[in-house]
């Protein structure tokens, strides 16, 4: 770095801090609690970020307008990491320097790269629905909070759902597992394989190589040759839409398909050719889909009061609601942390403990009954299946968990292994 750019950065940083100070002086009675927030409004997974991040902001803005958390305003300092790692590291350090009490991480590689720093700086971070599956075990990952069902829980829940749909037994049945051929795509596989032995069903896997813009041969093999009783779809990006469309065109009934959480958005349905095409498609969610929740109505009322129309991104309910979910869990953690710090500004450790005090947190049905404990950072691993019916996602099941014992045992085992290795 040349001295000149260093000076520029110092200047810019000075301006940033000045802005933060004037902001907090104006804003609240007690002050501002800063959260780092990483997003991806650009980059390969922007379809998620463009709806998720506004959801998080809207909820936090609403809480602030209602007087904040016990008088404290919350500021989520958003940065776009475009699903790349170097900015994620730099922005984490900036958030830390500015006194952030926690960071909402976005992206699996980013979570992995920040994990050691979070632990060393004792700053909590969240990775809802992605990240390191083993981090569900809080004993070995004390500062990382997946707060939602990880890939193992999702895989187990998918098998459970298939079992329920196929009349209570999987013996002799055939299940196809179509997945994006990257590490995250492989992740649920060991659980599903284990269950195929335990439950006695035939499992065949179909890999979609990145960038996943052609799934025709896999879809054909599933619908025409393998002819399974059930399909588990764990694809990302452009592929889910193509899988839906392909299976539909080949006459495979979509109500015998269950998609894991990143193949379950409105964008996937619309990309497949609209709601009409996707009738019956089962989607797995860790936060509720649709608009019919008290908290979403509150946000709409909040917009109305400000004299504005609700943003268009709200129509992408799956990702928007996940953004609200993420914000709500953070707010709950900060609230708990304020109890620990007796109303003073909480430290990052307080917030981490605040997470572990979250109990039966439902947010009016938008989220499952999450309970986070020092050992369980996943919050129970709850999911819910929503089926495409008409032009909406309709709940098909209640919040449930599949093969919880198996998943927990695996989480503990792998977490221990990984902790041993890295020491």
């Amino acid at each position, binding site marked *: 770095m040349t001295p000149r750019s260093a000076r520029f950065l110092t200047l810019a940083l000075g301006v940033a801090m000045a802005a933060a100070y004037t902001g907090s002086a104006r804003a609240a009675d007690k002050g501002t609690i800063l959260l780092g927030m990483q997003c991806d*409004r650009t980059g390969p997974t922007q379809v998620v970020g463009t709806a998720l991040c506004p959801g998080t902001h809207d909820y936090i803005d609403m809480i602030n307008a209602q007087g904040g958390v016990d008088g404290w305003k919350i500021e989520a300092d958003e940065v776009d990491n475009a699903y790349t790692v170097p900015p994620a590291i730099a922005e984490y350090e900036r958030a830390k320097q500015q006194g952030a009490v926690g960071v909402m991480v976005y992206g699996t590689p980013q979570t992995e790269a920040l994990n050691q720093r979070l632990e060393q700086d004792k700053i909590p971070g969240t990775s809802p629905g992605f990240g390191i599956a083993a981090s569900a075990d809080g004993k070995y990952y004390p500062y990382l909070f997946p707060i939602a069902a990880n890939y193992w829980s999702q895989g187990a829940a998918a098998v459970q759902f298939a079992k329920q749909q196929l009349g209570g037994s999987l013996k002799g049945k055939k299940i196809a597992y179509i997945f994006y051929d990257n590490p995250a795509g492989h992740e649920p596989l060991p659980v599903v394989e284990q269950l195929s032995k335990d439950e006695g069903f035939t499992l065949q896997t179909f890999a979609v190589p990145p960038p996943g813009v052609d799934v025709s041969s896999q879809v054909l093999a599933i619908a025409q040759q393998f002819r399974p009783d059930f399909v588990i779809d764990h694809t990302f990006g452009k592929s889910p839409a193509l899988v839906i469309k392909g299976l539909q065109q080949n006459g495979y009934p979509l109500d015998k398909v269950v998609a894991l959480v990143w193949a379950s958005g409105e964008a996937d349905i619309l990309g497949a050719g609209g709601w009409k095409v996707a009738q019956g498609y089962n989607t797995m969610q860790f936060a509720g889909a649709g608009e019919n929740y008290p908290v979403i109505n509150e946000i709409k009322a909040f917009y109305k009061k400000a004299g504005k129309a609700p943003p268009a991104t709200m129509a992408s309910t799956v990702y928007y609601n996940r953004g609200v979910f993420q914000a709500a869990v953070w707010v709950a953690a900060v609230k708990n942390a304020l109890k620990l710090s007796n109303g003073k500004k909480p430290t990052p450790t307080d917030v981490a403990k605040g997470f572990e005090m979250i109990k039966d947190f439902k947010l009016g049905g938008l989220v499952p009954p999450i309970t986070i404990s020092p050992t369980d950072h996943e919050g129970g691993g709850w999911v819910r299946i929503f089926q495409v019916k008409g032009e909406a996602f309709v709940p098909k099941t209640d919040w449930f968990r599949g093969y919880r014992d198996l998943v927990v045992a695996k989480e503990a085992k792998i977490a221990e292994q990984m902790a041993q290795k890295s020491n």
Partner: protein
Amino acid sequence: MFHSETGVFKTSYAADMALYPLPVARWTVAALAAVFLVGVPLLFTPYMMTLLNLVLIAVVGAIGLNILVGSTGQISIGHGGFMSVGAYTAANLIVRLHLPFWLAIPAGGLMAALIGIIVGIPSLRIKGIYLAVATLASQFIIEWTINHVTWISGGIEASIQVPPPSVFGVKLVTPTALYFFLLFFAVLAIVATLNLMRSRIGRAFIAIRDQDIAAEIIGINIFKYKLYAFAISSFYAGVTGVLYTYYYGIANYEQFGIDVSINYLAMIIIGGLGSVLGAIFGAAFITLLPEAVRLFLKHYGSMVFSQDAVLRIVPNMQLILFGGLIIFFLVVEPEGLNRLWRNIRNYFRVWPFSY
């Protein structure tokens, strides 16, 4: 730097070829050393340190790629792959055999060099855009292999966690400690490359780049030297991969995708092909520009847009400005930032007596 060469007479070949041809250059180096060893650690905040650290890692990779592309005239769109090779080699050695960093780093580099030689073999027969496609294929082959061979990838999300490097029992974890660690390797890469390029091997590289048939006629073994270039360049890439692994605390091939390969190409094209200083400029430019644009828009964007719009616009403006500035700099000076710097220097060299 800015200084006059009046009164400096070289009387031997050795003096002409010296790393510092002018006495004043020694002072420049001493001043730079003082700035980077004392000034920077004292004045920089941890956040600025983090940015600088990312630049230092990028410097190593960019210099390495520049040896291949800028100096030898071969092309590689697969350097991200070589970085993963280095990263996973080192991570496996660190985790399974508990090797210290001073063994893991060269090991990662050597393995990457070996793979680089294999990838470089087609360069004897194909050139230019064809070679580009061959190296692109290597990127995907390496990614596929790591993804599917759990013996290499560790099995869990294809990533291996590694402990931080330790020197004499002290774990390097703070940005400042890591800064000195990375600075050492960046300086090593710079000095090694400066020396390489004035050696017999370096001159052979340049001869091949300028006119390969002529080079062959004057007795340069093109096959051998092309493979040297691939090996050396991939060695640097492998080391870069290991440095990233230590810096992130984890080896993960998704951190070294095709976008990284292209980013490194962008660094050396903007910085200036075939020069060490150019690679340094390019690495700094590409790493810091998005951050500078973001900070600028964040604090001055609200004058034009509403706060809500800023959040939506900043990431996209960042991309637009990033692309725009790259085009601007290349239009202003097609030979890169290094040439821009040399023009400024040449102006001041004779200033104020420019006639």
